[in-house]
């Protein structure tokens, strides 16, 4: 497909690939031409509310596209493996999987630094990985072991990585949005020239505290970007049954908004770049990512009582984010089918190794029941179920 396009005219819009001086070969090794700039059109236009949308022509490089593929494949594999671990009862309680939505996490990382902050709700495994978390930290935490990112004390919904600007991991729907505006307040207060992305779902989009926080963010010009990951179902309730207006990018009213194809990693990258520039100058903005989750809401939800299997497989067929990048890589001759399959095999191996290592990680010590209640405990006493049997002094 790519070869025929190369021969086409160079009018803007139909020109997918800028002429590359080196001869085009079907067997270009992955490592070469890593930094050649490519300009690729997003799959769909952006829809704007109270602002001018960014261009649909996104610049990228072969190495960036390859890293998008690899990272999304890793995230996909990580979530599917978590599904199996949950079914074998190694993961307990809640487990909300992100497969299908990978382009949002990956596209966001492409246009931010670790000084920018991200805060999200409970579907946080991939967001954490995108911020620099490791597979070992993910699986250990999910299995309640000490090598987990929260040392086994948090669980699936409470991943954090403060040193790379990832503030969790929150279980209360909607609470993370005011918290995110608070992070942005801190960034403005300390003049850090960075922004915060507060992610929430279509279910949380109707929360009152979101509008309270948005009002304050707009009043005080906070560098906060509210990102609605609209996967169209708040648990089992379709967006049209929960929101009188499911045009979430418009719900900010006086706050500008942009609707983005969340299954297109390049569109996400472009929108996030646009949003960051906007927020640093003009205050808050809403990004609505049109995305989709293949799994149900959580592991206890088959995901098919409120949507049809045809819908799920239809999205997987037409809009899968990894397949989209695969096609780009193939059509631009950045990689071969085999190379991409090998990448997927590597990624699978990485995941399997991490799981094996996480299974070896020990469970927390009983004394960890009482650790980190306070940052500073003043030697106060805390008690177990039978206080005459189990008590501890908090340092």
């Amino acid at each position, binding site marked *: 497909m790519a070869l025929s396009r190369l021969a086409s005219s160079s009018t803007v819009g139909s020109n997918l690939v800028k002429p590359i001086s080196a001869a085009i070969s079907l067997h270009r090794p992955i490592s070469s031409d890593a930094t050649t700039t490519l300009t690729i059109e997003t799959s769909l236009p952006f829809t704007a509310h109270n602002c001018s949308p960014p261009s649909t022509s996104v610049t990228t490089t072969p190495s960036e596209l390859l890293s998008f593929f690899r990272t999304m494949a890793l995230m996909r594999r990580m979530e599917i493996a978590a599904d199996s671990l949950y079914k074998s009862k190694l993961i307990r309680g809640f487990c909300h999987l992100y497969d299908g939505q990978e382009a949002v996490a990956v596209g966001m990382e492409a246009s931010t630094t670790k000084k920018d*902050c991200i*805060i999200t709700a409970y579907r946080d495994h991939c967001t954490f990985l995108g911020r620099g978390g490791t597979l070992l930290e993910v699986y250990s935490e999910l299995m309640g072991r000490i090598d987990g990112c*929260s*040392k*086994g*004390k*948090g669980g699936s919904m*409470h991943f*954090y*990585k*403060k040193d790379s600007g990832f*503030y*969790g*991991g*929150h*279980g*209360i729907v909607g*609470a993370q*949005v*005011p*918290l*995110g*505006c*608070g*992070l*942005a*307040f*801190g*960034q403005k*207060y*300390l003049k850090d020239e960075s922004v915060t992305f507060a992610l929430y779902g279509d279910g949380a989009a109707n929360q*009152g*505290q979101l*509008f*309270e*926080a948005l*009002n*304050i963010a707009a*009043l*005080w010009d906070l560098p906060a970007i509210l990102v609605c990951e609209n996967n169209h179902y708040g648990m089992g309730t379709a967006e049209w049954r929960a929101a009188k207006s499911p045009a979430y990018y418009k719900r900010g009213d006086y706050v500008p908004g942009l609707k983005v194809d969340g299954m297109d990693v390049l569109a996400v990258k472009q929108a996030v770049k646009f949003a960051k520039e906007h927020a640093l100058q003009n205050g808050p903005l809403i990004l609505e990512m049109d995305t989709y989750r293949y799994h149900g809401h959580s592991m206890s939800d088959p995901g098919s009582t409120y949507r049809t299997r045809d819908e799920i497989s239809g999205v997987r067929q037409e809009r899968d984010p990894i397949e989209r990048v695969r096609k780009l890589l193939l059509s631009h001759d950045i990689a071969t089918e085999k190379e991409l399959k090998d990448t997927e095999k590597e990624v699978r191996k990485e995941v399997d190794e991490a799981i094996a290592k996480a299974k070896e990680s020990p469970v927390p010590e009983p004394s960890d029941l009482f*650790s*980190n*209640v*306070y*940052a*500073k405990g*003043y030697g*106060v*006493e*805390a008690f177990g179920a039978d*206080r*005459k049997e189990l008590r501890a002094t908090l340092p």
Partner: protein
Amino acid sequence: MLGVIIRNNKTILLRPSFSSAFRQFSSSAKQMTVRDALNSALDEEMSADPKVFLMGEEVGEYQGAYKISKGLLEKYGPDRVLDTPITEAGFTGIGVGAAYYGLKPVVEFMTFNFSMQAIDHIINSAAKSNYMSAGQISVPIVFRGPNGAAAGVGAQHSHCYASWYGSCPGLKVLAPYSSEDARGLLKAAIRDPDPVVFLENELLYGESFPVSAEVLDSSFCLPIGKAKIEREGKDVTITAFSKMVGFALKAAEILAKEGISAEVINLRSIRPLDRSTINASVRKTNRLVTVEEGFPQHGVGAEICTSVIEESFGYLDAPVERIAGADVPMPYAANLERLAVPQVEDIVRAAKRACHRSVPMAAAA
């Protein structure tokens, strides 16, 4: 308005009968209202640490709904003294997020009744974060404002939240009584790296207390988790916090005239609760009366009573007595309101019962 009278070669210094701010006198005790104590503590901590900021309804241009933040906007500017819209859930969440980022917010609730709109952020976003993140996300925030009954404000504006917040691990809950408490505990709260719920009392704001030079120093700080023995005694222990400390002290005066020596403990800290001071006192006196303004069921007194039974059962010579607010929503009519809140005579009566001095319980059953 200081006068010097010389009578019979003795010089008598007259202290002014009012004080709205402290005055430096050469030899007599300085007086300070709780309001000024809180204001000066906020001022000093904001001056010492640029990360400390104040947010809440009317804290800036209005000078504070109860004038606690008077003058702070002028001194520190609108970047550090922020008037919020009337949206507790939103602005409390923003305050907690700022604390996550490393700032030191002081969030004012006009009264703690309105904190219920934001309680999810106090408990789930603030109190539990350090634990859930295994120490990565500490939350150095102070939530402060008037708590409990005022005068004639009715049921929705008179609730005491000491026991609700006091039950939550991860929070520290303080309740000052005097100006010394107000200064020392607020400074400690602002400096503390954990979320602190700071329960003030509207009716105490205008009351004056003596403050020493040590208390007035900007480095003054009181320890969190330590109660103060306001009055030593040997016959009965009376625990109280906030406004009830004053009532307990008055009750102790009355009891003293009847030959009962009451030890009054000002809890200062609801969580951590100073169990060792309370138990040591009860082991000395063998009798306990707990006093609080809030509702009795699952209240602070219930916790103190259980703590004493667990640790000092053998030392008790009488059942523990509990004085608390009436088990009803606060009524408006003045005579009913008086019945709904503990009075000095209630504390006296309970102390006498604990000392087996009163008539046995009425044959109502």
